[in-house]
């Protein structure tokens, strides 16, 4: 087991791998399991080498059954362990939906807090990888709508490390959504930095004219859009929500109040989505600061399209800038 040092540039997959490693080293109640997470190291190599380092009991493959995996994790958490399980792709978590909604989310409440489930369900999610059907779903709304689940999604490799450490340490179950298109992008990560608390958004870019509110895979896109807006003379800020549940109203609303204009950006189909929630709550809280309605740039309400068409579904720089342009500038 390597001791952790300041890593110069690592991929998001490596950042997550390091977080798992460090958590397993720090606490032997942490166990990792799922489909192909053992010798193979996961289809995205996120669990690479964990079985070799920590042994079969700490990182292992299961039979191919997602409800069984989540169900077993629940039992292990009931009996004092801290399971971190992997759903191979977003859509393959759906067979476990009942376990997640009826048990993971409700066990603590049902037992008046006597049985909390300190487990993490890691879900590689969203598109941008040219995947075939069922491999690119953005499923955060299902989880965020379910009371009792914490829902977290990193947008940087540093957050991937830090938030996963926080998620594993959390006494409550966390749905940890990993933007899979970023697995192999490299960034500097200081793994010795303090673990960020779950529940805090972060301003990725200050901006005086308008605010983009976004998370996960759309953060780099929003930053690119802000960059381009700047080139066009508009100062657009970007808030990375990071934690969908709990939601950081304070940071988000402060940013929106300062600009009076906001666009929510997310990949998932827009109808009854997390973007709907953000738009609704920001409006409720900042109504008299708003110069224009909060706009949403989201996926269309269609099944995730195939590789050849996915660029049309994903919120891109142009679509974001069009929405910003729409924020009734002439009137101000």
């Amino acid at each position, binding site marked *: 087991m390597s001791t952790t040092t300041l890593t110069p540039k690592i991929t998001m997959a490596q950042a997550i791998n390091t977080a798992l490693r460090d958590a397993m080293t720090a606490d032997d109640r942490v166990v990792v399991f799922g489909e192909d997470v053992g010798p193979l190291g996961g289809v995205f190599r996120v669990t690479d080498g964990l079985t070799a380092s920590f042994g079969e009991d700490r990182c292992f493959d299961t039979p191919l059954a997602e409800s069984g995996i989540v169900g077993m994790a629940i039992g292990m958490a009931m009996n004092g362990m801290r399971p971190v399980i992997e759903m191979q792709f977003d859509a393959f978590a759906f067979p476990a939906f009942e376990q997640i909604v009826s048990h993971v989310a409700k066990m603590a409440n049902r037992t008046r807090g006597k049985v909390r489930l300190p487990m993490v369900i890691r879900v590689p999610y969203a598109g941008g990888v040219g995947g075939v059907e069922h491999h690119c779903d953005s499923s955060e709304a299902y989880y965020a709508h379910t009371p009792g689940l914490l829902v977290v999604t990193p947008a940087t490799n540093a957050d991937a490390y830090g938030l996963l450490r926080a998620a594993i340490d959390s006494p*409550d179950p966390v749905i940890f959504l990993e933007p899979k298109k970023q697995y192999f992008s490299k960034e500097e990560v200081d793994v010795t930095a303090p673990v960020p608390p779950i529940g805090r958004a972060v301003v990725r870019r200050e901006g005086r004219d308008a605010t983009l509110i976004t998370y996960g895979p759309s953060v780099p896109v929003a930053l690119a859009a802000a960059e381009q807006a700047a080139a066009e003379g508009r100062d657009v800020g970007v808030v990375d929500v990071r934690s969908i549940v709990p939601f950081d109203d304070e940071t988000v609303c402060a940013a929106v109040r300062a600009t009076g204009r906001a666009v929510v950006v997310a990949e998932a189909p827009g109808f009854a989505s997390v973007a709907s929630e953000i738009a609704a709550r920001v409006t409720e809280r900042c109504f008299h600061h708003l110069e224009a309605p909060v706009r949403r740039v989201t996926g269309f309400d269609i099944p995730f399209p195939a590789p050849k068409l996915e660029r049309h579904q994903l919120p891109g720089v142009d679509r974001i800038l069009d929405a910003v342009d729409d924020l009734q500038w002439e009137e101000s």
Partner: protein
Amino acid sequence: MSDSLSRMLDEHGNVVEGVDPATLPPLADLLDGYRALVVARRFNDQASALVRQGRLAVYPSSHGQEACQVAAATVLGEHDWLFPTYRDCAAVVTRGVDPVEVLTLLAGEWHCGYDPVATRVAPQCTPLATQLPHAVGVAHAARLKGEDTVVMALCGDGATSEGDFHEALNFAAVFRAPVVFLVQNNKYAISVPLARQSAAPSLAAKGVGYGVPAELVDGNDLAALTSVLAAAVERARSGGGPTLVEADTYRIQAHTNADDASRYRNDDEVAKWLPRDPLLRLKAYLTAQGVLDAEREAAFAQVAEEMAAHVRAGSAGEGTADPSELFRHVFAEPTPQLREQSELLAAELTADLEAAR
């Protein structure tokens, strides 16, 4: 082994031909078991009465299935776990949990009543078969921790059709988890008869497909049940992996008080099962063995009555029903959103109070 029925005592309390009486559980244990049956029966009847009196929302009775309830609980050691369904109140009571607490959920509370970790009894589970993978997880964790804990996981015949039954059995087999799965085949899933549930020769036959040893046992014969389940628990404890046990029994009453069984089965069918009552045959046997007499019977009835009185007294109150608890346990630390919502409700309640003045 999975197709022939294990039975020790016949309906009249006689030791079944071919069974060596020495293989029966010790008389003292059977006597304790009989007392537990009497208490379990009384508990079922008391809970049903509370429903009729409107003091309990609903009660799925295990009347007629008490041998399964008692055996499942009594074969376990202190550190073992029990995973019951909504129909298994009597098993939880036999395990030693306060019967008032056991009825909490059914009395209309939002929580399970007892402390699952302290009692080693999981919350009674409503979504069918979903508790079975949890049982495997508890067992596998115990194994990883080097503990010799065994887990008893209960479900009904209907629940065996759910995908989670399959996944749990398979996980248990692959990980050799120390779990005993007890299927109480009471022939009905609400209105749906066994024939619509399965075309297999028996539910125990499902063990083969997982590589799990399975046993079909007379579910109204406490002696046979105890022997089979105790052996399964012992095998699990000593590293031999899971066992599937099908108990052949019958749901004497309706699914719950809300159900009208006359819509889907006739009384003749029920009548045929009445003589197979688990209490009758054990009573006959123990009486014949000379360890049960009217005095002892009365003593047991007395214990049962005290339990019933305790249940009645405990079910009198309105329960906790403190609205602030709505937000307290969802997360270890309420989110800002829940705090806001909790304050909103508190303000409403204060306003209501003031308005009522």
